[in-house]
């Protein structure tokens, strides 16, 4: 398994991606919004799952930035805040025209999980009186007129578990009809399908969907296609392919041994 993953990484194989329906739905949800829309980005994952989720989180950031959307970052996981910092680094280095406080803002981590979601659907300041730089929300241009997250045009949630997409669906998307898209781990993705399309406008499941989403952005925005950093998920599909095939072979061998031993047992 180690070699199956290691060798393609060193070989840097990249395969072409076909944009699937789900990736297209997520892309459209962000792309169809008028430029400058308000987007809440909640990063509910930690470094342990960044291998699966960071590429799509960065793709979300680039897509929103190129569209000029106003991005409100927050995290429901204690280790999610540094993940937000990574996206903010991307904005600072690749989109220097974006201004903190006018185009993007970061809120600190808060305890309480889904209770935080419930709270900010009613009153943003009840949870976040200050942004992460310690400035009052009333002094920040992009938060001055925001009472609660019902004012958002879209919620993008990158989630690795609990609290995560399910909680955003239960406490924000369903009761208040706030449009939500999710990028989540492969473990969670199948559980999100029943929520599509009414409660969730689309879901990206793990690295494959991230690669497809990257491909969708590349088609629409050549500036991002030219950025080698924006192709991370696609690059990861090489090891993925080899490892998946290895898994199938392992299952087949395992079953072959199983049937052989059963046959012998019967004889």
């Amino acid at each position, binding site marked *: 398994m180690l070699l199956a993953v290691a060798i393609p990484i060193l070989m840097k194989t990249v395969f072409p991606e076909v944009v699937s329906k789900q990736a297209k739905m997520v892309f459209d949800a962000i792309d169809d919004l008028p430029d400058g829309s308000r987007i809440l980005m909640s990063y509910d994952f930690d470094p342990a799952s960044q291998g699966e989720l960071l590429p799509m989180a960065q793709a979300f950031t680039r897509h929103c930035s190129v569209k000029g959307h106003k991005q409100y970052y927050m995290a429901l996981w204690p280790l999610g805040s540094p993940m937000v910092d990574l996206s903010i680094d991307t904005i600072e280095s690749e989109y220097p025209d974006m201004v903190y406080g006018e185009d993007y803002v970061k809120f600190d981590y808060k305890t309480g999980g889904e209770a935080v979601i419930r709270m900010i659907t009613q009153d943003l300041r009840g949870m976040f009186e200050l942004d992460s730089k310690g400035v009052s929300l009333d002094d920040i241009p992009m938060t001055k007129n925001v009472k609660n997250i*019902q004012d958002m045009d879209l919620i993008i949630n990158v989630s690795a578990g609990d609290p995560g997409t399910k909680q955003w669906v239960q406490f924000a998307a369903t009761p208040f009809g706030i449009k939500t898209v999710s990028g989540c781990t492969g473990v969670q993705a199948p*559980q999100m399908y029943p929520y599509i399309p009414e409660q969730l406008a689309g879901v990206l499941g793990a690295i494959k969907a991230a690669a497809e989403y990257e491909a969708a952005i590349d088609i629409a925005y050549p500036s991002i296609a030219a950025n080698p950093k924006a192709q991370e998920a696609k690059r990861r599909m090489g090891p993925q392919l080899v490892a998946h095939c290895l898994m199938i072979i392992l299952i087949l061998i395992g079953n072959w041994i199983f049937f052989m031993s059963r046959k012998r047992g019967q004889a």
Partner: protein
Amino acid sequence: MRIRTSFLPVFALLAFASLAGAQSPEPPTDVVISDTPNDAGQSVEVYWALSETDIFNPLNTNVKETDPEMIVATYSIERKVANTHGADVSDEDSNWRKVSEAGAGESHWTDRSVHMGWSYDYRVCSVDNQGDASTWCDAHASVTPTMQAFNMAKAWLAIFMLVFGLFIAYFINHARTGKKLWVRKIAGLEAIDEAVGRATEMGRPVLFVLGIQDINEIQTLAGLTVLSRVARTAAEYGAQIEVPTCRSLVMAAARETVEAAYLSAGAPDAYQPDRIHYLTDEQFAFVAGVTGYMVREEPAACIYMGGFYAESLILAETGNHIGAIQVAGTAMPSQLPFFVASCDYTLIGEEFFAASAYLSGDPLQIGSLKGQDYGKFLSVLILLIGIFFATTVSLTETDESAGFGAGALNYIKYNMLGSEGLGSFGSGETDIEGDDS
């Protein structure tokens, strides 16, 4: 000469166009404001009709010919406090003040920064890309946000919860009077007794893992109920039971549960509290501890009941490796595949809750399970009726909003299961804007 004259009208047109562009875009029309229904008086709805030079306006039929300099970029919304009923108000608020901006094509905005009981005036104008603003379009009357006594949008939700609560309360009560309630056998449960029996024969311990969630998680509570039964069986057979926990509160609860089970089995002396111990809160460190124990002690039976995450795979795989009988139960859909594939029996989702009620033998729990079943029955019924009407509408190919079938379908979808409140049957769509009259 003839050629030159024919150009004249074109010049005139161009001149006119540039003049118009220098002026401003067409203003929006029909600004309507209303109190947001079903709220605590904290917001106001502002609606307007799109400007004629908004390229998203469906009435603007020849979009391509819209003067590029008159195309609406944004709508600017201003507000003024009309009457505070005696309360002090800042100068800023008592004059027209910009409160929001909406993009082209948008015709609605919710103002969530109002005081309950004050009256407000609103006006909207359109602004083009050059920053030229149109004339203002004022709302006809002022609006006063008020609080409603009951959130009618959630009326059906309240009804469902009440009905559901009544089902459960009724059956709990029914069970209390001592009547036997029948619940079907659950396959995995016999396996548990069998597993404990085998462990006794082999003289090896039984491992019981309650998941990694805290005591406020329902799955952990359900797992505790199963633990109580397993501990009683173990006490009767004289088997050892080992319970490592991931949370200290769970450990405290598990100790009490097991102690009570040993007591009721008449073997209080066999109870060893040290076998129920807290390892660590950290997920993988916990798993490492448990799997280490499994490899060393080789328990004959491993029972996993509770909320699991990624560790399910590691636990089940290790258990499989040491050849233990494994029974699992969880309501974590993502972890079920691993348990299903590598355990002998798995209680899937709701089955796990049912099993805990079944095992507890507590009439109250079985009663609530019965109530739950009736809730499910009701859900299936609504689903069936909905599908029936949906299919009828589709088969008869009538217009979506006409006929009894369509009316019923809409009522089920948007009133009963949606957020349009009780409404009136057959109206097709209810008035979502509410009324202030």
